[in-house]
């Protein structure tokens, strides 16, 4: 029952942060960051099973693994960027959070470029 552990860690972190916030805001922020990181690492360790299933499905459908790894990379970038942006927002640094999101969006587009080019190539080949 990992969900109980995760919820327990989350609740303990939240209660600690609320108590500490009134006396020391910085420590409260650090507590919330550590809690978030702990939960994030807990969830990431389980992702490998999902990735394995996806890879098996892709190999069954004869999908080029290059595309699948690109999509998985994009999802990973989105998750990590979201986590970082949320932490920054919690710390009251909304502008840094926006910049993180911007960088993530650019990275996603860069990773998607080969797929876009592949589609363009195929469409251009279909047109005589």
């Amino acid at each position, binding site marked *: 029952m990992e969900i109980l552990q995760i919820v327990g860690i989350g609740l303990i972190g939240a209660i600690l942060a609320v108590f500490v916030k009134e006396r020391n805001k910085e420590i409260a922020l650090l507590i919330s960051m550590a809690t978030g990181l702990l939960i994030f690492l807990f969830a990431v360790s389980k992702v490998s099973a999902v990735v394995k299933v996806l890879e098996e499905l892709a190999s069954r459908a*004869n999908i080029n693994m290059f*595309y699948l790894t690109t999509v998985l990379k994009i*999802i990973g970038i*989105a998750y990590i960027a979201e986590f970082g942006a949320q932490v920054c927002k919690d710390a009251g640094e909304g502008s840094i959070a926006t910049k993180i999101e911007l960088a993530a969006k650019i990275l996603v587009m860069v990773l998607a470029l*080969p*797929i876009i080019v*592949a589609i363009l*190539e195929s469409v251009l080949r279909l047109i005589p």
Partner: protein
Amino acid sequence: MRNVVIIVLLTTFIDLIMPSSSMQRFVKVVMGLFILVTLLNPILNLFTKGQDFEVMTWQLKTSTSTANTVLAQSDKLTATNQSLFLENYSRRIEGQMKALVKLVKGVKEVEVQVELKGGKQLGTLEGIASILVMVDTQETEDKSSSIKPVEPVRIHSKERTAGNEGAKDTQAVLDEEHKRMEREIKNTLSNYFGINPKIIKVVFS
């Protein structure tokens, strides 16, 4: 058709694990492109007669080299997998043949070596090239130790009744027996595995 169903399943699965933030729109666009390219690929293959179009990776030279090395490694892995599979396959056939040959009357110990036709790749496998069956009509050492007292009695009786001519007769009988066993082994193996009996070679020891 089957591939399309799997692609749809795959994308719904990926859709489930997508993050729920402002990034979602971007990820969804890329997902759409991914579905498009995977569905377009077979259609394009129809027009270009099996030619798979290359992914343009002109913007990042380092990523192309890593992709190439990964592809090369995957090819290498597939080759090793296939050769291991073929090895395992021939070993299994050998085991089955061993068990079958042991059923032939007079065979005490048997060793089978199967040689496969074609290359080391799975697609190039053409069947069985040759089968070498090494038959031992006598008990092995550890088995003979338990029935050792029987042997001198048999030899003794032969010497008494037959003598020198008898020895020749026993040789002829032995040859006849070997021929019968060879015939039986060839018949059994060719019937069970549907192979030409000419490729089976039986050796007695």
